């Protein structure tokens, strides 16, 4: 059988951002893969060292759109560790609420794209319509549909009145039934199963070896979630049920993301119920001394880490962050071989890739 190399990308109808894959095929079966990145590299790690500590809260929020809240939040956590700032309890709950709302919107987006790629466009439109409930909620509470701008050093920049709490509860209730319906379709519809089951398999031992994170890891049977392993914000007070699937395929990764939406709904409800009174932020503009710190969070795509070094000036000496998608790319070398050419975009989408995050 003839062997060919086919290019996929850097611009491809099924990918939202540019990435170039050289795929080796035998007939229509994939046998090898080479990934070329760098099409949207912006040198942001260099840029953050030219700006002051406060400006970087705004800059880090613009790294990515779908997980935009996790970046400034984790960056602020690193600053707070260096300065020894204790974040008010109410602010910790408000950070969790913002994060979980973003998680729902992000995971629904990926679920929708998956449906689109397998040609189930009515499901794609239905999922995106459900996602609008979350987008509307963000717009109403935070004034924006993507970048929420809620984080500051020592707390948050928003508060929830009784009226707003009632509104979020109502919106969350509106999500529950449609969520159950779409999860049933993703799990049981025979056409969806035919395209996703046994496709793009990443065995558990390979997932461990490649150090993959987030729903990609949990879809391969790895029970790891930063919210439970290294709790931050109010996650030490709230029980998070970690959803693990053992299928290791595209279907397993999709189910993990959908189950995590349901879990996010539960977490938001719990936070609203137990939201403590008190301030939402510290009452002064803190000075950041010299030091170094690590801060981690569980973004929609998995573990996000920030490493910050300060030298007492108003600019970071070094700020490094590693986004979840960064760890998941190489695992495509395991997921792809043995699958058909038609499944390439589907397998890539199953890692929920964020290229603007990866390349910074």
């Amino acid at each position, binding site marked *: 059988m003839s062997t060919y190399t086919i290019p996929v990308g850097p611009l491809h109808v099924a990918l939202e951002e540019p990435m170039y894959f050289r795929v080796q095929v035998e007939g229509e079966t994939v046998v090898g893969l080479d990934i070329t990145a*760098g099409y949207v590299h912006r040198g942001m790690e*260099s840029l953050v060292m030219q700006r002051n500590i406060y400006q970087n809260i705004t800059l880090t929020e613009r790294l990515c759109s779908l997980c935009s809240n996790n970046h400034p939040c984790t960056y602020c956590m690193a600053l707070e560790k260096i300065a020894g700032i204790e974040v008010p309890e109410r602010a910790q709950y408000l950070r969790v609420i913002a994060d979980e709302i973003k998680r729902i919107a992000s995971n629904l987006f990926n679920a929708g794209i998956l449906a689109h790629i397998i040609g189930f466009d009515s499901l794609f439109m239905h999922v995106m319509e459900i996602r609008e409930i979350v987008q509307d909620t963000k717009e109403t509470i935070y004034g924006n549909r993507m970048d929420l701008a809620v984080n500051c050093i020592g707390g948050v920049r928003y508060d929830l009145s009784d009226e707003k709490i009632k509104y979020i509860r109502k919106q969350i209730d509106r999500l529950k039934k449609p969520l159950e319906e779409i999860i049933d379709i993703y799990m049981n519809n025979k056409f969806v199963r035919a395209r996703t089951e046994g496709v793009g398999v990443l065995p558990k031992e390979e997932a461990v070896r490649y*150090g993959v994170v987030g729903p990609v890891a949990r879809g391969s049977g790895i029970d790891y979630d930063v919210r439970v392993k290294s709790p931050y914000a109010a996650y030490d007070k709230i029980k998070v049920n970690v959803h693990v699937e053992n299928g290791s395929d595209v279907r397993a990764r999709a189910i993990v993301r959908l189950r995590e939406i349901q879990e996010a709904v539960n977490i938001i409800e719990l936070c609203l119920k137990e939201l403590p009174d008190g301030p939402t932020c510290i009452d002064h503009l803190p000075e950041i001394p010299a030091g170094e710190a690590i801060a981690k969070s569980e973004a929609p795509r998995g573990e996000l880490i920030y490493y910050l070094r300060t030298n007492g000036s108003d600019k970071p000496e*070094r700020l490094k962050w*590693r986004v979840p998608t*960064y760890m998941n790319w190489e695992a495509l070398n395991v997921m792809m071989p043995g699958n058909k050419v038609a499944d390439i975009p589907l397998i890539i989408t199953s890692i929920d890739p964020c290229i603007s995050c990866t390349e910074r």
Partner: protein
Amino acid sequence: MDRNIQKEFEEKLIRTIGQGFSLRWETDSKGVVTGWCRLDDHSRITNVAMIVSGLGGRVITITAYKTKDVHQRDIHEIAYHFDLDGCTCTVTIEIPRNSGKVNSITPILKSADWTERELQELYGIKVVGHPNPKRLFLDETIDEGIMNKLIPLSVAMNGATSKTLWEKVFAATSKEVDTK
């Protein structure tokens, strides 16, 4: 009985490299433990990688940065951030000024692959023994060690988007000259 992975790590470290390191553990208000370790000999990083691998850990990321040594001279340091079952342990080494090289840990921990390639192209630190050392993000035409320099935006963009602007500026300048 709960596993004490920090203790296991520390014991293995003493057994492997003796006294040639410093290590401290911090616990935050949520009970999350973070480790900070510094090696005297940078070549021992491969031993640390083997210990982490043996404990079932992984590389979260690796940070290279420029700092000053005791004589206030520019040097490179590399901070390896390892995950030990939820505990992040940062192991820092100093790259000797005259070598600019470090041994790759990717053959031991596959999770170091991309991040080693990235620090090589951004800081110009040679990663010796990497199984796939080609460029990750930057084009081959861009100099290595680009993070060590400040590149003005106009140079970075190669005048591509400012052409229209400069044409206007030149046009305006030549008119002024004509008038005079």
